[in-house]
């Protein structure tokens, strides 16, 4: 299916993937903190420090475990599934390097469905305790997911067609070899589509408002209202990791320079720094968009995502026509 660039030893691949997972576990919460900070500054507030989410996670980890009365094992297992699926996806995705361990398995479908696994686990967890809000949030999350996932797949398909591989590290490596691709029409269309989907998948404005206290308007937060303590920490961490992964993927698929290809200790360090810079730039941009717009009416969200889907389809068609 693909030729991984260069021959890289297994140890180096394992080291690279470890770096990626650690980077996303630490970096995802930092991105959340950075976005909150940018928002606060734009609104004229000082805001919490950028590392606040990490501090919160440590606090949650030390808290007592409180379970919802009617919750079953599904509720307990979902945060673990969410974090584990995100960790596997992070380990195999081209974030710091194009040669992670399991990189040859990092097919578009595998990564997308690993993310979907976490979404479904959370939706089931929302339904599990039998509260009205959990069910409401799960229903909304599934409605949005049902439109966002195809758009995500089709957008990535446009890139796959161009690179003639559905392997994500290979797409990044091929992009590095053909810099002109990044300015091609199908890439730009796919980029817009992906940005829309990423906003939906990470629960940002205009799709969801992560900072609201209004239960009735929540999507993601409504699903996880029954979580507390360490489990809430895992759910937050899982969300932050997905955000880190998606931002990193968008950065590397459309602007791959700086990624370690192939992995070597020095290249990994450079790759890490460059990834952090790119993800932070995306986070700042998203936060600025968030602060200057409002949340869409719930029934307009499918229209936005359908728009993203259409752009993704256009990207594929453009790719096929201009080939």
């Amino acid at each position, binding site marked *: 299916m693909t030729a991984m660039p260069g021959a890289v030893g297994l140890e180096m691949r394992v080291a690279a993937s470890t770096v990626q997972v650690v980077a996303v576990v630490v970096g995802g919460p930092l991105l959340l903190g950075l976005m909150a900070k940018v928002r606060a500054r734009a*609104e004229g507030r000082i805001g919490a420090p950028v590392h606040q989410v990490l501090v919160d996670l440590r606090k949650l980890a030390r808290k007592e475990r409180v379970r919802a009365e009617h919750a079953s094992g599904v509720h307990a297992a979902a945060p673990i599934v969410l974090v584990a699926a995100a960790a596997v996806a992070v380990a195999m995705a081209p974030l710091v390097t194009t040669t992670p361990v399991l990189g040859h398995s990092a097919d578009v479908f595998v990564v997308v469905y690993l993310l979907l696994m976490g979404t479904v686990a959370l939706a089931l967890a929302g339904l599990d305790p039998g509260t009205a809000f959990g069910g*409401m949030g799960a229903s909304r999350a599934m409605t949005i997911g049902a439109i966002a996932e195809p758009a995500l797949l089709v957008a990535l398909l446009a890139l796959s067609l161009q690179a003639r591989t559905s392997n994500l590290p290979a797409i990044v490596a091929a992009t590095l070899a053909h810099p002109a691709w990044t300015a091609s029409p199908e890439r730009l269309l796919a980029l817009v589509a992906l940005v829309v989907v990423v906003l939906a998948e990470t629960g940002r404005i*205009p799709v969801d*408002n992560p900072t609201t*206290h209004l*239960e*009735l*308007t929540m999507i993601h937060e409504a699903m996880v209202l029954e979580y507390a303590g360490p489990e809430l920490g895992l759910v937050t961490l899982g969300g932050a990791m997905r955000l880190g992964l998606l931002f990193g993927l968008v950065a590397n698929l459309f602007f791959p320079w700086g990624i370690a290809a192939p992995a070597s200790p020095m290249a990994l360090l450079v790759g890490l720094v460059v990834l952090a810079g790119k993800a932070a730039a995306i986070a700042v941009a998203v936060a600025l968009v968030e602060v200057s717009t409002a949340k869409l*009416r*719930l029934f307009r969200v499918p229209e936005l995502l359908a728009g993203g889907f259409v752009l993704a389809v256009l990207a594929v068609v453009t790719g096929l026509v201009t080939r």
Partner: protein
Amino acid sequence: MSAGRRDPRGGSGQPGRPRHETEAKLRTSCLIAPDELVPEATALLASGYRVASIAAHDDGHAMRVVYVFTAGPPDRRVELQVRLDAARPSVPSLAAVSFPASRFEREMHDLFGIEPTGHPMPRPLVLHQHWPEQWHPMRRDAGPMPAMRSDAGPYPFVQVEGPGVYEIPVGPVHAGLIEPGHFRFSVVGETILSMKARLWFVHRGIERLFEGRVVDEGVELAERVSGDTAIGHTLAYCLAVEDALRIDMPEASARLRALLLELERIYNHVGDIGSLCNDVGYGLAQARALVLRERLLCLNEAVTGHRLLRGAIQPGATAVHRLPTAGELSEIGDRFEELVELATSNTVVMDRFRGTAVLAGADAAGIGTLGVVARASGLGLDARVAHPIPGLDEHCLVACEESGDVMARMWVRAAEVRESLRLVAELGGRATALDLTEARPAVLGGSGLGIVEGFRGSIVHRVEVDAEGRLTRCKVVDPSFLNWPALAVALHDTIVPDFPLVNKSFGLSYAGNDL
């Protein structure tokens, strides 16, 4: 009620018309037999009056109900009083001719045990089901409260049945710093089929607390009926007391009071516009609104010594430290226009507001809504025009919208802030003194009515004062009491995630409703 009153002006030496003529023009009061009530009320309602307040009174030997009907402009106030048998008090229900009356009757039934005969839904309203039965806290002989019932079943919410219908219970404890209220939604998908608001979690018995206080001690209670309406309620209370004690306030005092009322309107409307933006996730506008609101609260403090404008108005007295300057007002006006521009230039915000939760004009009128809610649905009700503060000669424009949606309620608020800023500048410019106290007449006792257009709508206080200058009854009507039922009507066919926005656009008080 006017019988036995003497000319109260005594030694105050105020020039002007004899007081009883003024009172006759403003308020007529007549005692009628219970069987005359329905035809009399029907005739008043047919000639344009609204039910402003229905208050029961326990006179010890007998029960008495005072029905206040108001209309304006010109300012007209009619009181119908009905005496009842203390042993088995009951009144014919006005529910068939007035929806607001049906709510007052249920309140009266809970608090006084007066039976509204012929009421179509004589369920408890104020007291929740676990309150002791047959114990009516506003009765003179109520005594200490018996234990709450533990055998009271759950509240009988209307069960909506059908495929895919489910219920969402929200509150009374909410995630934000908001007052307690329980909302029960029956929903299909995201569409609200019906919503039942369950309030009265903060029933403090505030009307009972007024009783026995000398009139000056009532101010601290009036200021706390609803914390954000300190001026509205205090002014209504003081106007009622001054009406009862025949204290004539000079025009200069009326102007200062009108100015304070507008300051209260401005800071609350600015806060509400910011909250509307916040409820659609538009943080930037909310942040700007909060900064502007803080600026206004600081101005309030400079003017009255209190951020929420407490302490400036007393019965027979009005005092401020200083007046807002023209520079301050124009700066606030500029910043307000920036805020409105920021909110209304955002297409997503406008899309969320437009067409959301329409309250039709006919519904608004039938329910008896007041204030911003009524004006956004095309009803030009404004007590500043209908019942101006006695002595005030300043006219204001009534902001009115027709569409009845969230957008209309926001536009009404925006237009009112502009008009209020103009009024503050105008009234401040004509102020002659900052501290005005009127001499108290020696003769005390009587009843009085105060009507004020607070920022939510018309506030009505009716007091009765005994010969020692102590309150024997103070009936408080916050416009929220009349506006809450309209929320459920406007929500029909609205989607669940729009509820917080709709609720905020109504901007009703829980404390002012629960009393």
